[in-house]
């Protein structure tokens, strides 16, 4: 190594915004969960890099950490704090009430503990996503692609940000059946009973792999694993089974974020958390903090279906147009996508 000749001074990129410090608290998943904590943090760092400001982040290990973490960030001089996940809802409301001069944002939650339909503190911006809309498209695409007539899904935990994907997915499959008069089955989830297959941890472990394997054993030839890195376990189950089975990604376009599974990837159901966080940070840095909730929909592009990439040639050529029509139908309200977990 070479000794630095002189101490480097800060501020080498972008115009620093005075006294602006964006920060983030994760839930128990941590920032390397390959899921919403990580995506949210990417949005945050992207914004901070452009602004040339420092960030602080803190991971929660358990439910009793949320409040302390929020508190520690406030003490560290953060001016804009993003909480990731509905679990942090109440602690964030408390922190926001206690620190009216700090601005907050929370992902996947309305910050509305009293259910009056309004955010409980004027300095919190909820960032929520009607993921079911995009998942509906994904379900339709999966049903269209499936040859075995069975598609499967399983989740990391039975929580609304996960089940909303599964709901939309199944509704999309059902819509396909309705339209085409077919009988594609969904295994691993049931939108009516709200029961299904969960690994109970967002970890790519053997347990997750066996869940995927169980679905494959039931003839599913499209798998939608919802929850952080568990898609990796599903990919391994697919490879081990040697069959012709497609994988679906969630949150980001997994085709680009994880090329190692690109060859299996039918399509990804995207939830633009990084963009939402990025926008919120930029707004706040610009002194234009707006507590109006952001609701990601197909309409505003907050949620969307990715391209088919390598599978372009393998899907029904008419599919793209059908999806477009459905998307328009959802946007104009002629097709209803209702999940109990919808925002």
């Amino acid at each position: 190594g070479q000794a630095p000749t002189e101490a480097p001074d800060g501020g080498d990129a972008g115009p620093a915004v005075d006294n602006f410090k964006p920060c983030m608290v994760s839930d128990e998943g941590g920032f390397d969960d390959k899921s919403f904590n990580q995506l949210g943090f990417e949005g945050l760092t992207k914004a901070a890099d452009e602004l040339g400001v420092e960030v602080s982040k803190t991971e929660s290990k358990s439910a009793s950490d949320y409040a302390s973490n929020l508190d520690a960030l406030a003490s560290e001089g953060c001016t804009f704090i993003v909480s990731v996940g509905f679990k942090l809802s109440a602690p964030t409301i408390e922190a926001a009430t206690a620190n009216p001069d700090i601005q907050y944002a929370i992902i996947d939650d309305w910050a509305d503990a009293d259910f009056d339909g309004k955010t409980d503190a004027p300095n919190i911006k909820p960032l929520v996503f009607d993921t079911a809309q995009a998942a509906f498209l994904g379900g339709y695409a999966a049903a269209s692609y499936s040859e075995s007539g069975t598609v499967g899904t399983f989740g990391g935990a039975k929580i609304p940000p996960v089940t909303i994907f599964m709901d939309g997915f199944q509704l999309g499959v059902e819509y396909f059946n309705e339209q085409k008069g077919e009988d594609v089955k969904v295994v691993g989830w049931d939108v009516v009973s709200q029961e299904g297959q969960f690994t109970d941890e967002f970890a790519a472990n053997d347990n997750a792999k066996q869940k995927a394997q169980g679905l494959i054993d039931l003839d599913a030839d499209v798998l939608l694993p919802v929850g952080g890195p568990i898609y990796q376990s599903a990919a391994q189950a697919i490879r081990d089974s040697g069959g012709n089975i497609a994988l679906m990604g969630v949150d980001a376009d997994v085709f680009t974020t994880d090329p190692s599974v690109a060859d299996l990837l039918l399509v990804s159901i995207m939830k633009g958390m990084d963009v939402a966080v990025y926008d919120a940070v930029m707004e706040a840095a610009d002194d234009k903090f707006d507590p109006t909730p952001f609701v990601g929909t197909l309409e505003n592009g907050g949620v969307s279906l990715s391209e088919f990439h390598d599978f372009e040639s393998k899907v029904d050529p008419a599919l793209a147009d059908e999806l477009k029509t459905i998307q328009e139908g959802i946007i104009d309200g002629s097709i209803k996508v209702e999940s109990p977990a919808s925002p």
Partner: protein
Amino acid sequence: MSAIIAATTAADGTIVRETVRQRSLKLPISLGVVAVLILLLALPAGRSGTSVFRLADRTSTLALPDVGVPTWQTVFICALLLVLLAAYATVQVARYRRVGLWLPIVFAFVAVFGFLTWSAADGLVPVTGLLFGAVSLSVPLVFGALGGVIGERAGVVNVAIEAQFLLAAFSSALVASMTGSYVLGILAAMLGGALVAAALALFAIRYIVDQVIVGVVLNVLITGLTSFLHGALMRQNEALFNTPPRLPRIAIPLLHDIPVLGPVLFNQTLIVYLMYIAVPLVAWALYRSRWGLRLRAVGEHPQAADTVGIKVNPTRFWNLLLAGSIAGIGGAYFTLGSVGAFDKEMTDGLGFIALAAVIFGGWDPIRATLAALLFGFSMNLETLLSNLGSPIPGEFMKMLPYVVTVLAVVGFAGKVRAPAADGKPYIKG
């Protein structure tokens, strides 16, 4: 010598005490309860339809057809069989006869079959997949339990199997990822497991700290350490430090073509084949080799072992290291055999389940392996049942493996004893 008190007989100088024939109603009662439960599934809770059992999987060369059975009738026949078996057991016990081990095994088989048939009314049971998953989920438990058995047979209680798993998973991911060799990864895992064992040995043997304390604390220490290094090291450069190659599946020719069991047992990874070797080897060696005799001697009565020239503490030390490296192979399965990357706390308490298998298996390698398999099976059964859309809430299904273990432990407890010197340090005068 003339008159000898009656009721005892002496043969070749040893005294054979007369034994009272005792009846233990535990077995008939538990069999009876299960039989009645299955009968309930057949009669009041009967489901009509067809239950399909799939015996082949995608990779089978010999494609067996799916077997469909009429649900209600099959469950009923199973229930009848179970009732008969339970009745037979009751009669045997009432006549003070011993009931062979075959009976509970056959009974369990029929009961599971009946229950699956009921659950799969108009559904599909992929038999191969069910068993394959069970084996897969059991692999680390089996290695952990083997390590635990060896350590405890030598007289050192090993609560730190969890720590051995974790450090082994960590080091195998790290080394395999940096060298690109999974063989080196497995060796690193063994080293990781042995390292924890060495710490256990140091504190338990050298400093005579209570072994349970050391074990518990090592679990905390290694959890903290691996999580810390994962955050501070691996996460900084995932590509370099945490993308180990995954073990390839090796299908064994011919054996792999055996229907149903072939794909389950003989289309596996290196670690699983190691397990097939390790279990019988340890079982044989423990009871039939010099190594095993001395190991058990040291765990049963260290001073007696000392008086015949066996060095107690070194024996314990080296065997702990051996046990640690075996548990370490189980740790490698988490990363190399299954998922292909290390994640903090990824062993998720399975080390404790392995410990439970050691105790439940009565400190015997074969029984401990069976206990691990039972656990893996009930865990995978849960997956199947929730896929079949059972009316029971998912959370209760997830309790299944744990409830099964509690029932099994409560039912079988008291029949086996720990090695006499298990957990007791040996200090020479």
